[in-house]
């Protein structure tokens, strides 16, 4: 039996469909979740292969210690041998705790299904290499890097059971949450438009945002740009920022330093726009435009709008 933990407190994300799809390829899937998502949205997990969803509405999901107890309870309840998380903020906090509690090896940030020998690929050295991990314990835990597998609809809505695991209350108190409206969260974005110091100043980001809007992409930036405060810190991608692997990454006025590439080289298609033909980023690019961002980017936005209109 495969147990998949999903975080449904803000609705059911694409990452949840990915983890259920992944689990389904390994065996029969039961989902454990918490919070107040409606049963009508939770039952859609059945379409991706879940046979049943268990939801404990008394757990708010902010405390990893408490969630670990919930997941351990569910694993025991259904007799799971494998537990799957998304490698997001919650997964990164709960999966390691469960590893200790359950004495089960954790494959952290899996990018593929187990191969013939049972080894699972993960990115190591910030994406400069791939490591194959063997789990040596009989129970296994996998946290799946978002955007590593395509969600597949294979079934129909499933039953949703309300449960109470009686795990007590958490020790972490949420004081406030500041949430900008309408932005696409970077780690989940399929299309990303990113810019660096080549843009010269924060006042020039309009052309970047227009391009992003034209294809419904999230925006990102290089580290110096976040450091000088031209852009918010959460947009900083790279080895010391967020690691992303969107379908399309458009890099504008970014030189392509090794630490930047480390966070984006998992992108399926990379487009680089840079005035300098020697910019290292061109070596990592699929498509390159040697030219001035201030001319090229508005032209690209216009071309996309024209294409979309047809």
């Amino acid at each position, binding site marked *: 039996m495969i147990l998949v933990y999903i975080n449904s407190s803000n609705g059911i994300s694409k990452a949840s469909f990915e983890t259920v799809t992944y689990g389904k390829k390994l065996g029969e899937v039961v989902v454990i979740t918490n919070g107040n998502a409606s049963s009508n949205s939770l039952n859609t997990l059945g379409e991706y292969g879940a046979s049943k969803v268990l939801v404990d509405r008394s757990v708010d999901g902010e405390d*990893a210690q408490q969630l670990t107890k919930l997941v351990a309870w569910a694993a025991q309840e259904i007799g799971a041998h494998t537990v799957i998380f998304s490698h997001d903020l919650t997964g990164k906090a709960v999966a390691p705790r469960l590893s200790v509690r359950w004495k089960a090896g954790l494959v952290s940030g899996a990018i593929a299904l187990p191969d013939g020998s049972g080894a699972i690929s993960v990115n190591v050295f910030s994406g400069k290499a791939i490591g194959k991990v063997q789990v040596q314990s009989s129970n296994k835990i996998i946290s799946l890097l978002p955007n590593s597998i395509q969600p597949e609809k294979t079934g129909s809505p499933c039953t949703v059971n309300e449960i109470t695991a009686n795990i007590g209350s958490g020790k972490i108190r949420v004081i406030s949450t500041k949430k900008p409206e309408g932005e696409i969260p970077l780690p989940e974005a399929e299309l990303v438009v990113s810019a660096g110091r080549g843009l010269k100043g924060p006042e020039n980001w309009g052309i970047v945002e227009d391009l992003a809007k034209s294809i419904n992409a999230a925006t990102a930036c290089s580290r110096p740009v976040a450091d000088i405060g031209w852009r918010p810190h959460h947009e900083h991608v790279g080895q010391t920022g967020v690691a992303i692997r969107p379908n399309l990454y458009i890099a504008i006025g970014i030189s392509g330093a090794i630490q930047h590439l480390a966070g984006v080289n998992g992108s399926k298609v990379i487009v680089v726009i840079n005035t300098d033909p020697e910019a290292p980023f061109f070596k990592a690019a699929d498509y390159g435009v040697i030219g001035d961002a201030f001319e*090229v980017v508005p032209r690209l936005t216009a071309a996309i709008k024209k*294409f979309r209109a047809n």
Partner: protein
Amino acid sequence: MKILVCISKSPDTTSKIAFTEANTKFDENGIQYIVNPYDEWYALVRALEIKEANGGQVTIVTVGAAADEPIIRKALAIGADEAVRIDADPKDAHYTAMQIAEYVKNNPFDLILTGKETINYNGSQVGGMISEALDLPYVSIATKLDINGNILTLEREIIGGIQVVEVSLPAVISCAKGMAEQRIPNMRGIMAARTKPLQIISPIAIEDLTKFSSYEMPNAKSSVKLIAPENMDELVNLLHNEAKVI
């Protein structure tokens, strides 16, 4: 206030990565090791700031071999008071975390800080594992940490926003960008580091739960297709028909 900062080594960020022994072993030839940036820039510096404001003691711990002592001295030079090295090869996150947890069981701390992740194995595992082994609360990937008496106030980046949470000590926190600014050790710090206490302790017996069986390099990109800057219709066409991403 007793603070423990968990320090690991990682290859310098510009290192060229290669493997030996039929791709089963990381090739350390020519690799310069540094203190893992998250541990040094954020966890350690924030611990020192707390100590400077409130008093207390900052201890660093690393699970590693004698060859890792330069990174310990570096962390002492930045300002940690004392160091502990658990003399073992940290092959697996569970093994590493259980060693540190055992040390803390015998030597309690008010606050335990780790980095968000190591930049070589990028597991983001050790902090969570320590917290479970000690049955302590864990706030991961915190970008701001303030302390008032016995209460920690933390910020963390949640999907598309920022959350402020509170938790009582003792607790385990993993630290990310935003928490502090990198400090460059000065000459006095470097001199002082030579004589600060470094305790070496033997590991306990713990099984490894995972093992890296082999490595491979990601598929190299075929060479870049250049598009004339005047011809953005062509780029849109390629992204739609060839790459199929828009």
